[in-house]
């Protein structure tokens, strides 16, 4: 699964996710990536989010929209909101990670697996890439 969140010069956010799904899946099983609110959500007033993980758990926890709701209704920071929702996923036995970017250019890339391929670029073009914990 791959994903991206972007903030343009007009202050607009966008988020996207794309995946090949799960090895050996049967019966037309679909994970969270194409589900708006679970694997992908974006609202200028809160943040843009793209997830990767054990789809069933990200759908049940409505991960991307719940993080935005915690920011909108409880005033959480992007780190607090992401951590709370990812901890709920972990508590149910699921795992994975996400990337989040808000309209002020704050960014986080939390995950509860051994690693996540991830990277970010600042407004002045500085690129950082990470793989392991």
């Amino acid at each position, binding site marked *: 699964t791959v994903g991206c969140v972007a903030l*343009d010069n007009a202050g607009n956010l*966008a988020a996207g996710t794309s995946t090949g799904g799960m090895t050996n899946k049967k019966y037309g099983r679909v994970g969270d990536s194409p589900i708006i609110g679970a694997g992908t959500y974006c609202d200028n007033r809160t943040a843009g989010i793209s997830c990767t993980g054990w789809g069933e758990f990200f759908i049940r926890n409505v991960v991307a929209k719940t993080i935005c709701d915690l920011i909108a209704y409880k005033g959480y920071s992007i780190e607090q909101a992401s951590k709370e929702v990812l901890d709920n996923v972990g508590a149910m036995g699921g795992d994975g990670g996400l990337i989040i970017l808000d309209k002020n250019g704050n960014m986080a890339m939390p995950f509860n697996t051994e690693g996540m391929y991830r990277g970010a670029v600042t407004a002045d073009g500085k690129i950082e890439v990470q793989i392991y914990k």
Partner: protein
Amino acid sequence: KKYVLVVHGGAGTILKKNMTAEKEKAYTEALTQALQAGYNVIKNGGASLDAVEAAIHVLEDNPLFNAGKGAVFTHDGRNELDASIMDGKTLKAGAVAGVTTIRNPITAARAVMDRSEHVMMVGKGAEIFAKEAGLTIVDPKYFWTKERWKGLQEAIKEDSVKAVLDHNSKTTSKLGTINRDYKFG
């Protein structure tokens, strides 16, 4: 620091001890390319939706990642692809699921958002829509890679062992498979 673009290439059992130096370099280069492609759009005054599409195209076209070319295989040996996109300004959204002939699924999701009344389309219908919208349609073989095919064979072998174990166990096993080590491709 003000960030303007973030990407991920999947999470899971990614351990340094299992990674060769050349593989690590290849992943780092691919993520850097994706970031650069998206950043170039932003730097030139482009919209965030176009930046997201540009960055994800790089990752869908790179067989290292489980999306587009290099996607993992279903039990019956097909590549079923899913994608979604959302605009933070208008809260419009688009998604496709279970498609097998669309070269860049993120662009199909964008077309659903921009050029239809709908949010989500699946399977054959989504493929017909994508073709009518003029997107690049490929033979499903385009997505095939040896490494993922091997991954499927290993998963099926593991599955059959589990099926035997389940058969002997009291609890009725659920239908469907979740291959823990392969689930992120």
